[in-house]
C-alpha cells in the first residue's frame, strides 16, 4: 500500500494536497467542505491587520483556449476582507473539529516589525500548525508597500521571515512571488531568515486581456482595469522551473518546498514532487472544478506510486533533480531523427508545413501510387527538434529515434567550436 502521508516544514499531513491561500480557503464553510472532500490541509486566506481591506467588483478575468477551456485566471482581489477575529475564531473551531488536517495561517503586514510579530502571534494562538508569509500579491497590496513589494526585495524577505521566526515557535513558510528575475535570490533570503520552507509560486503579474468593445483591460471595474495575478494551468511551467532551481542550486539546496502553480491533476503534483517539492498547494483548479477534484488527485497519485513501486512521497521526492542540469552540461553529440509511421499517418500534412515553414525543410511529400500522400523525413536535414512530433494529431505516429553516433558525451564547454573551450587534455 502506498502511503500519501508526508511531512513538510516539520508538519505532518495525511496527503500532500493543501488548498493554497485564496478564496477556496476564505472561511470555515469552504474549508470544511474541502476537508470533507479529502484535502489534507488548507492555507487560510491571507489575514492582515484590521481594519479589513475593501474589494472591488468585478475581480476575475480568464484566459481561454480556442475551444473555450480556461487555462488561466487573473485576479485583482486583495487579502481577506473579513475581520481578523472572525477568521481566528473559525480557525480555532476547525482545528478542534478536524484534528488530523493541517491549517496554516497566511499573514501579510506592512514593513514593520511590531505589525508582523503581533499578527503572527495572534494567528499562532488560534492553533494553526504553521504560519505562511504572503510576500506575493502582485496587485493592490504592493501599492501599499506589501505583498510583492516585500517579496521582490531580498532584504525585506529575510527580515520579515526572521521577525516571524522570532515571534512564534511553529514552522514558518515564506511564500515567494515569481515576479523576480532570479527566484534563487528571495529563496536564499528566506533561508537566511530562518524559513522552514518556501511556498511558491504566488501569482504572476499580468493583464489577461482587453475588451475590444470598451477598450479597457479585463476584468473591468467601472470602465477601467488594472494588472492582476495570473494562475492556473498556464503558469505551471514557470512554477516547475522555480521549484527545480531552488531544489538544485547550492544556495538553497535542502530548503523545503511547498509547490504551487497550476496544479490540476495528480500528475502535475507528481512532477513538482519529482523536482523536489515536499507537498503541493492548489487554488485555481479548485476554483474551476470544485473541491471534488482532490478525489482523483489522491487516487491517481496512489495508483502512480503503486505502479512505480514508491511506498511513500519521500521515495520519489527530488528523483528528477539530478537530471535537471544547466544547458552547458547537455550532450551535444546526442542525435535524434523523426520517424513517421506510415500505417498510423492520416495524411493531414501538419508535420510537413510546420517543418517546411518554420524548421528545417526536412519532410518530403510523395504521391502514393494508390492515391494519397506519403510523408518522409529527410535524415540529413532533420535536426531532431521534435516539432513535427508535437504537431502530429495522432499519438505515437511520429517518434524520435536515437541515432547511434558512436561519439562520446560532449558538452559545449568542451566543444571544438566553442571559442572559450576549456582545454580537455
Amino acid at each position: 500500500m502506498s502511503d500519501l502521508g508526508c511531512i513538510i516544514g516539520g508538519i505532518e499531513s495525511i496527503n500532500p494536497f493543501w488548498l493554497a491561500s485564496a478564496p477556496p480557503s476564505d472561511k470555515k464553510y469552504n474549508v470544511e467542505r474541502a476537508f470533507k472532500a479529502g484535502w489534507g490541509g488548507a492555507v487560510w486566506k491571507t489575514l492582515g491587520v484590521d481594519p479589513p481591506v475593501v474589494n472591488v467588483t468585478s475581480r476575475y478575468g480568464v484566459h481561454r483556449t480556442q475551444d473555450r477551456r480556461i487555462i488561466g485566471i487573473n485576479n485583482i482581489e486583495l487579502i481577506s476582507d473579513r475581520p481578523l477575529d472572525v477568521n481566528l475564531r473559525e480557525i480555532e473551531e476547525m482545528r478542534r473539529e478536524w484534528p488530523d488536517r493541517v491549517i496554516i495561517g497566511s499573514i501579510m503586514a506592512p514593513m514593520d516589525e511590531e505589525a508582523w510579530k503581533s499578527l503572527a502571534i495572534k494567528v499562532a494562538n488560534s492553533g494553526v500548525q504553521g504560519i505562511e508569509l504572503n510576500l506575493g500579491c502582485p496587485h493592490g497590496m504592493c501599492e501599499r508597500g506589501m505583498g510583492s513589494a516585500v517579496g521582490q526585495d531580498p532584504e525585506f524577505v529575510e527580515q520579515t521571515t526572521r521577525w516571524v521566526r522570532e515571534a512564534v515557535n511553529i514552522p514558518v513558510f515564506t511564500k515567494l512571488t515569481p515576479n523576480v528575475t532570479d527566484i534563487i535570490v528571495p529563496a536564499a533570503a528566506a533561508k537566511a531568515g530562518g524559513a522552514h520552507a518556501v511556498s511558491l509560486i504566488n501569482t504572476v503579474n499580468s493583464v489577461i486581456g482587453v475588451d475590444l468593445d470598451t477598450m479597457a483591460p479585463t476584468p473591468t471595474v467601472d470602465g477601467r482595469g488594472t494588472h492582476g495575478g495570473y494562475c492556473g494551468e498556464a503558469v505551471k511551467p514557470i512554477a516547475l522551473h522555480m521549484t527545480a532551481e531552488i531544489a538544485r542550486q547550492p544556495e538553497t539546496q535542502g530548503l523545503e518546498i511547498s509547490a504551487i502553480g497550476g496544479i490540476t491533476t495528480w500528475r502535475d503534483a507528481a512532477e513538482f514532487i519529482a523536482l523536489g517539492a515536499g507537498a503541493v498547494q492548489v487554488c485555481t483548479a479548485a476554483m474551476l472544478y470544485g473541491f471534488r477534484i482532490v478525489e482523483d488527485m489522491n487516487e491517481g497519485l496512489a495508483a502512480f506510486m503503486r505502479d512505480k513501486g514508491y511506498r511513500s512521497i519521500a521515495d520519489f521526492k527530488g528523483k528528477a533533480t539530478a537530471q535537471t542540469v544547466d544547458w552547458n552540461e547537455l550532450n551535444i553529440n546526442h542525435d535524434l531523427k523523426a520517424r513517421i509511421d506510415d500505417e498510423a499517418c492520416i495524411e493531414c500534412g501538419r508535420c510537413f508545413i510546420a517543418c517546411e515553414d518554420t524548421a528545417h525543410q526536412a519532410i518530403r511529400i510523395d504521391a502514393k501510387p494508390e492515391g494519397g500522400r506519403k510523408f518522409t523525413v529527410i535524415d540529413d536535414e532533420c535536426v531532431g527538434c521534435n516539432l513535427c512530433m508535437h504537431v502530429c494529431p495522432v499519438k505515437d505516429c511520429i517518434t524520435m529515434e536515437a541515432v547511434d553516433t558512436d561519439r562520446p558525451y560532449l558538452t559545449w564547454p568542451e566543444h571544438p567550436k566553442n571559442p572559450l573551450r576549456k582545454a580537455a587534455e
Partner: protein
Amino acid sequence: MKHFKITTENSRLSARDIADNFDDLHPPLDGAQAIVEAGRCLYCYDAPCMNACPTRIDIPKFIHQIRSGNLDGSAQTILSANIMGGACARACPTEVLCEEVCVVHHTEGAPVKIGELQRHAVDHLMAKGGAHPFARAPLSGCKLAVVGAGPAGLSFAHRAAMLGHDVVVYEAKPKPGGLNEYGLAAYKMANDFAQAEVEFLLAIGGISIEHGKVLGDNLSLGDLCTNYDAVFIGAGLTNARGLGVDGEDLAGVGDALEFIETVRVAEDKSSVPVGDNVVVIGGGNTAIDAAVQAKCLGARNVTLAYRRGPDAMTATQWERDLATANGVVVRYWAAPKTFSGGARVERAAFSTMRMDDGKLTPSGDSFELPADMVLKAIGQTLNSAIFSALKLEGGKIAVDAHYQTSLPGVYAGGDCIKSGEDLTVQAVEDGKQAAIAADNMLRAKRKGAGE
C-alpha cells in the same frame, strides 16, 4: 439522421406534422456548437477536404476563422470560391465530397461537420445583411447574356459582374434559382432559402433577370450572339425521359420532378395531394427525394423500385439510409412492366431482373404492387432541339477546357454539359470558371483591338 413523422396503422399526419417534416433537415448549429465542432478540425495542410470540393473552398481556413471568431471573414472565404456556399452547405452530399476524405475520420471515427459549419458562417453573413461582400472591378462596358437562372447561370452572372461586366439573365420560369428553387428537397432548403440566396447574390449589382424568356421560343441563340459580347448557357436538363411501358399515361402516373416541384412551390405542404401507395421508379437522389417527400406528406406505403442492385444505385448511402429509416421500402432488381387500373392507376407490375454476363436481363419472375401514385425518377435529358447550332456530346452540350462550346463566345456549364456530376456545387464551379474564361477572352480581344 432525421426521423420524420410518418403515417402508421392508426394515425394520419396533421397539417402541423407535415409542416414539421418539411422544416430544416439539419437544425443549424448555434454559436457554441460551431466553436466546438470547428475545434475538431486539424487545419490540414493542402487539405484533402479542400481538394474534394469541386469549388475548392479553403475549408481549413474558413473553419479556423469560425474558431477565431471572425465569422464575416469565414463567410467571405467560402463565398469567394462558391457564391452559393449557403445552398451547397445544405444540399451537397458532403458524405461523398469533403467529409468523405476528412482525416478526422481516422482519429475520431467521424468527419468534421464541414457542411454544417459552412452553413453557420454563410447564414451569419446573410442574416447580418449590410453591404454585399464583394466589389465589382472597374466596368468593362461589355454585356453578357445568360440562359437559365439556375446555379450555373447565377454563378456565372455573379462572377462576370464581379469582373466588371453587365449581365442579363433570361429565365423561362417565374422565379430564379433553377433546381435550387424547384428541385432540391424542400427540407434541405427550408425558409425560402433559395430566394434569399438569389437576392443576396444579385446585390453585387450589374445583373438583371428577365423571366418568361424561353430559348427556342421567344428567345434565339443567334440574337443573343449578335446582341451580346458573350453568352453562357446554363439551361439544365428539362426533358423528362419516358419508360415506354403500358399504362404510363394513366392518371396518377407522373414525373417525380413535377411532384417535387409541386411540393416546393406549395405554401401549405399539407395541401399537396399524395397517394396511399406510392411507387417511385429510379435509383438516384431524385428518386430518394421523391420517396422521402411522399412519406413526409403522409403516404402510407412508399416503395422505391430500382431495376439494378444496390451497388449500381447512384443515391448516396446517407440518402438511402434517410429513406429507409423513414419507412421507404427499397426493392432492387425490379423493372416496371405495366401500370394498370381504371380511370387512375391502381397497380404496378414489375419484372424481377438479374445480371447475366454483365447484361441486365429479366429473370422470368414478376410481382405486383398496389399503386395509386407512380413517380418516375429516371433522369432528365437535354432539350437538344433548341441547341442544334451547338455540337453535342453524349446527349449534352460539348465544351472545351474553358467551358466554350463549338460556337466561339458561347459558353455553357451545369447539368447541360458533360462535367463530373449533376450537383449544385459542380454547376456553381462551372459557372464561375466559365465567367473567368469569358473574361479572359474579352480582355484578350480588347488588347488585340489595341485598347
